[in-house]
C-alpha cells in the first residue's frame, strides 16, 4: 500500500476578515481566502489546477466548486465540494494530497467559507437538512448545542467530568485568542466567568459554546518536490485519517468515544508518530466537550481523564501541549475548522503569527475536524520536516 507521508506539502494559507460581515456573499469570502492564500504562496490563479471547497449549508449551490473556481480565475482539472461538516477542511487536505499524488492536479487550492452570522439575508435561501429532524424537532431538539450536551452529560456520568474542567478549555482558548489580532473575542475570561455564564443546554454553558461567524480560509497543496522550490517553508502532510462511527446519535455506539479514535490511529500510523511527538494541537472546539473528548481519543490522556488533564494550564501556550493557539472556534471565529488548519500551517511555517503565540521550535502538529451530530471526524498531522 502506498503511503502518502511527506509526499505533499502545504505551501500557502489565507484567511479573510472574520466576524459579522454583513453585505458579503459566501462566494466572495471564498475568493478572498483564495486570493490571500495565493499571495502567501507567491502563486497566481493560472498556477492552480485543482480546487476543493465546502458546500456552504446556509447557502448551497449546485456544483459549488465550479462556481468558486471560476470566480477565482481557476480552470481546474480536479474539483469537488465536500460536506463533512466541521471535518471538511482537514478532509480537504486528504483529497488534495490524493489528487496531487495521483497526478490529477499539480496545485490544489482548498477553501472553506461561510456566512453563517449574517445568513438568510436573501429571500430564496434554503438550508441543507440534517436527516433526523423528524425524530428530534418534535421533542424540542433544535440547534447543535443539545447534541454535544448529550456527550457532555454522558461523559460526566461515566467519568465524573465537571463543568469547571470544561471551563479550563474555554479559559485557555480565550487566552490564546487575546494574542491573535484576527480573533473576534479578545477580552480575557476567568473560570469564574465561565461558571457564571448562563446555561444554554445544560450541562453546557454559554462559554462552552463556539461563535457564529462569517469568514473564510484557504490553503494550497502541491507535491513535496514542487513545494521545496516555492516561497514558503514547506509544511508537509505527514499523516491523515477520517472516520465516521455512526450517522445518527440514535445509532452511536458511544457519545464519549467518537470518530477521532480511529481517525487519529490511521494518521499516527501513516506518519509513524504518536501523541508524544506533537508540539501543539489544533483541536476542533465547536464546544468545550468536543475538545476534551478528542484529546482523549487522540491518546494525549487515557479515556475519561480528559477533565483532570486539561486543568492547570497544560493546554495553554507554554504548557505541555498548547491547544488551539489561535483561539479556536470558541474565541477566534467559527469557520468549521478551516482556521485550525491554517493556524497549524502558520505555526510550522514560522514567523507568521504574533511572536507571543508562536510555539517554540514547533516541528510537528496535529489538527482535528469534527462534524454534524458527532458523526464525522478527520485528522491531519503536519510537520516542517519529514521525520
Amino acid at each position, binding site marked *: 500500500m502506498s503511503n502518502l507521508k511527506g509526499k505533499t506539502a502545504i505551501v500557502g494559507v489565507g484567511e479573510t476578515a472574520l466576524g459579522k460581515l454583513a453585505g458579503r456573499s459566501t462566494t466572495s469570502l471564498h475568493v478572498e481566502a483564495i486570493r490571500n492564500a495565493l499571495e502567501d504562496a507567491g502563486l497566481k490563479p493560472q498556477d492552480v489546477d485543482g480546487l476543493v471547497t465546502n458546500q456552504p449549508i446556509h447557502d448551497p449551490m449546485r456544483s459549488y466548486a465550479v462556481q468558486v473556481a471560476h470566480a477565482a480565475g481557476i480552470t481546474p482539472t480536479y474539483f469537488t465540494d465536500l460536506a463533512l461538516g466541521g471535518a471538511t477542511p482537514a478532509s480537504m487536505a486528504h483529497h488534495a494530497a490524493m489528487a496531487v499524488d495521483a497526478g490529477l492536479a499539480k496545485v490544489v487550492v482548498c477553501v472553506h467559507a461561510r456566512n453563517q452570522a449574517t445568513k438568510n439575508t436573501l429571500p430564496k435561501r434554503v438550508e441543507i437538512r440534517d436527516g*433526523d*429532524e*423528524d*425524530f*428530534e*424537532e*418534535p*421533542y*424540542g*431538539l*433544535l*440547534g447543535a*448545542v*443539545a447534541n454535544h*450536551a*448529550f*456527550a457532555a*452529560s*454522558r461523559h460526566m*456520568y461515566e467519568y465524573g467530568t465537571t463543568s469547571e474542567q470544561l471551563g479550563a478549555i474555554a479559559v485557555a482558548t480565550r487566552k490564546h485568542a487575546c494574542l491573535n489580532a484576527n480573533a473576534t473575542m479578545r477580552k480575557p475570561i476567568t473560570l469564574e466567568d465561565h461558571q457564571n455564564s*448562563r*446555561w*444554554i*443546554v*445544560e*450541562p*453546557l454553558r454559554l462559554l462552552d459554546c463556539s461563535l457564529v461567524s462569517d469568514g473564510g480560509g484557504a490553503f494550497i497543496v502541491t507535491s513535496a518536490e514542487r513545494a521545496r522550490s516555492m516561497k514558503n517553508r514547506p509544511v508537509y502532510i505527514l499523516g491523515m485519517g477520517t472516520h465516521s462511527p455512526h450517522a*445518527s*446519535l*440514535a*445509532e*452511536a455506539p458511544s*457519545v464519549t468515544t467518537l470518530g477521532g479514535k480511529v481517525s487519529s490511529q490511521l494518521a499516527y500510523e501513516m506518519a509513524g508518530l504518536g501523541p508524544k511527538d506533537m508540539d501543539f494541537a489544533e483541536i476542533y472546539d465547536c464546544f468545550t466537550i468536543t475538545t476534551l473528548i478528542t484529546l482523549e481519543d487522540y491518546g494525549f490522556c487515557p479515556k475519561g481523564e480528559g477533565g483532570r488533564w486539561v486543568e492547570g494550564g497544560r493546554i495553554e501556550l507554554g504548557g505541555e501541549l498548547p491547544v488551539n493557539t489561535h483561539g479556536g472556534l470558541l474565541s477566534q471565529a467559527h469557520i468549521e475548522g478551516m482556521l485550525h488548519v491554517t493556524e497549524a500551517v502558520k505555526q510550522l511555517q514560522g514567523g507568521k503569527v504574533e511572536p507571543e503565540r508562536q510555539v517554540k521550535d514547533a516541528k510537528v502538529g496535529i489538527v482535528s475536524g469534527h462534524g454534524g451530530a458527532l458523526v464525522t471526524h478527520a485528522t491531519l498531522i503536519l510537520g516542517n520536516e519529514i521525520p
Partner: protein
Amino acid sequence: MATTAPYTKPLPQMEPEAKPYWEHLRQHQMHIQKCQSCSKFFFPPKEFCPHCLSNEVAWTPVSGKGTVYSTVTMHRAYTPAYEGEIPYNISLVDLDEGVRVWTNVVGVPPSEVKCGMRVEVVYDDVTPEITLAKFRPA
C-alpha cells in the same frame, strides 16, 4: 365556547418509511422495525436493515421500557413555541430491545432526570394526527 390554542411546535413531516411508526403511536402502541433476516431491531426507520441490508423488515411491538442513555436540559428556546417551556428535558433513551430514541422524560423536573434512570413510555397526543412517545420514570 372553549377553543384550543393551535399547536405550533415542530411536527414530523413523515418520510414514507417512517409512517407506520407514527401510525402506531397514534394508536398508543410503540412499534420498532425488526429485521426478519438477522433479527435485529433498528431505528430511525429505514426500508433496508442497516445491519444486513435485507428488506424483510417488520414493525414489531416493543416493551416501551428503557434506560436513559444521556439527558440534557434546554434553557434556550430556539423557536417561539418553546419560550413557555424552558427549561425542559430532552433525553436519549435506550429501549430494552436495543434501539435508542430521542424523547422528553416527563412527570419529574428536568433536574431529576439522570443517565441510567429506568423509564417507560407515555403517549402524548399533541394533535389529532400526531402522538409523541414520551417517557416517565418507571
